[in-house]
């Protein structure tokens, strides 16, 4: 995780995700207000903001775990509508990691990783297991393959969750506060895994409060508040020279400690 390699952007001109005027309401509550966002292939984006600002909702809209009510979301040239075929196609290309890992407790680590390749990609079991072992090695826990999620530490579980997503060979990865439920010493191991992933050129959207990670990895940092994108910039500019008052206040709170 040297600075030199991570700072080189793998960003291309190709558009991976496009959001045009996206709105979402929970009943009366307006969670997302006119979100416009273009993500290039290979771009690493960190989304931050106070809780309740809509950042998790935003990335959950991208793989349709939440439904948006207005505007267009286009992922990998596929438009996200009520069309189940499109939703299936997008979910095959988009991996996601959750705050609480959401590993399947009744399946072993290896089975967690092979489940989707076997059922969705219709892959032979042996091939799926080889791929799973490859990614478990990449997240540095191949020796835990036969254990069950309940037998692992939080950091190990989150790394399994990352490996599980990677087994589907996604082109885009979404991270929804992947380190918020972890003890400090486990945060480092998960962030290291994410940094290594960023170096491979994966398109990444991370909702996180890990500002060190943002500085090191992100091509762009987005600040959200009240369901709106308030400010977005390259990390250097964003942290050293925040434009809006709300960003300044948020950064002073989060970086004070």
């Amino acid at each position, binding site marked *: 995780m040297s600075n030199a390699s991570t700072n080189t952007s793998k960003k291309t001109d190709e558009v991976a995700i496009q959001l045009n005027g996206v709105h979402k309401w929970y009943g009366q509550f307006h969670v997302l207000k006119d979100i416009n966002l273009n993500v290039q292939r290979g771009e690493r984006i960190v989304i931050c903001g106070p809780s309740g600002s809509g950042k998790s909702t935003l990335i959950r809209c991208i*793989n349709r*775990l939440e439904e948006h009510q207005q505007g267009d979301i286009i992922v990998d040239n596929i438009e996200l509508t009520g069309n189940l075929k499109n939703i*299936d196609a997008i*979910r*095959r290309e*988009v*991996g*996601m990691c*959750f705050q*609480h890992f*959401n*590993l*399947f*407790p*009744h399946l072993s680590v290896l089975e967690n990783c092979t*489940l*989707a390749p*076997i*059922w*969705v*990609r*219709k*892959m*032979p*079991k*042996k*091939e*799926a297991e080889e791929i799973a072992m490859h990614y478990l090695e990449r997240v540095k826990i191949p020796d835990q393959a036969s254990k*069950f999620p*309940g*037998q692992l530490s939080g950091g190990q579980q989150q790394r399994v*969750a990352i490996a*599980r*997503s990677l087994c*589907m060979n996604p082109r885009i990865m979404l991270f929804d506060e992947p380190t918020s439920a972890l003890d400090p010493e486990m945060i480092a191991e998960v962030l290291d895994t994410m940094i290594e992933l960023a170096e491979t050129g994966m398109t990444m959207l991370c909702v996180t409060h890990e500002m060190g990670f943002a500085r090191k990895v992100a091509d762009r940092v987005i600040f959200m508040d009240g369901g709106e994108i308030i400010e977005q910039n390259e990390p250097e500019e964003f942290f050293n020279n925040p434009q809006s008052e709300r960003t300044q206040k948020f950064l002073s709170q989060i970086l004070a400690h």
Partner: protein
Amino acid sequence: MSAETAQNARGSGGASLFSDQRFRSLFFQALVIGLLGAFLVFIVYNTAHNIEKRGIQTGFAFLDAAAGYDIAISPFMEYTATHTHGRVFLVGLFNTLLVSFLGIIAATFLGVFLGVLRLSPNWLVSRIVYCYVEFTRNVPLLLQILLWYAIFLALPSVKQSITMFNDIIILNKRGLVLPEPLPGDGFMLVPIALVVAIVASIFFARWAKKTQAATGKIYPVFMTNTAMIIGLPLLAFAVTGFPLDFAYAELKGFNFKGGVVIKPEFTALWFALSLYTAAFISETVRAGIQSVSHGQTEASEALGLRPSWTMRLIILPQALRVIIPPMTSQYLNLTKNSSLAVAIGYPDIVQSFGGVTLNQTGQAIEVIFITMLVYLTISLLISAFMNWYNNRVSLVER
């Protein structure tokens, strides 16, 4: 405090045996066992004494004596008044097993169905199920049995029977009369075909699993097997030239002769037991499905698994471990509740053997002992099976 007691408190020498912790615990255990033993000896002696004084017969010889009374329902074996009390026992046992078995099957299907409907996002559907569950499980089962019995007895008399499909099916207050199937030559091929189909579908399921592991191809196992299990017997039936005749019931005098009669006592008990237990099972199923966190569904869907696969591969395996233990209790309850048959005269083991036979022979100890043993055996068998199944679906943690 005097110097003497202070010395005692320090426990030097003068402490009695009774303040020794081990001695004291042994003493009380011995006391309890002794009292229990004395009580048992008293009961046994008292019973033996009274039996002798009143000249009551003991032993199991009565099982070989002629029963001398009729039993209205005996679908599995021939029974007339000249048969023995031992035969009564068997008839009653099979009637208990019949209504319990069919009750468990019906209650399970209905309960699972209702439990899933209760979670429906459709407000009306979920409310209707809610009302059904709250009504059914909060009214005493005995009342429900009597209600269903009253409903079936309120059907028209024999002369005014409700007939369906050109007099093939007849419904009146004495029961539901169906044509009696008379298998002809070659009909044996049909059950053989069914067995073959079941065996073949087990092999197909295994083969499909292996093939999926080897090549990744997914076969529609459920659909194929269903088609096979229904199709093969039908095919055998057709190939052998439909070798099945029916004996239709005919009105002769005051009643229908011929055909198969399903008595209202059986139907009422079966309905009430199934509907009552289904309400409890539906709550169990609902709780089981809800116990699996929504994050599991999200993770599965984010990986691209379809809702039906998510249900089958992720939700159900986790819900089952919550559902099975209370489900076992419901099966045991249903079996034991079937003894309420006595209220409407369905000849289960309690009504026939534990009721009429007991009254006629007066050998209460033996009869009650045997009857209790029957329920104990059935219940333990159900428990053993469910525990075995529960172990198969339980979760490894730590």
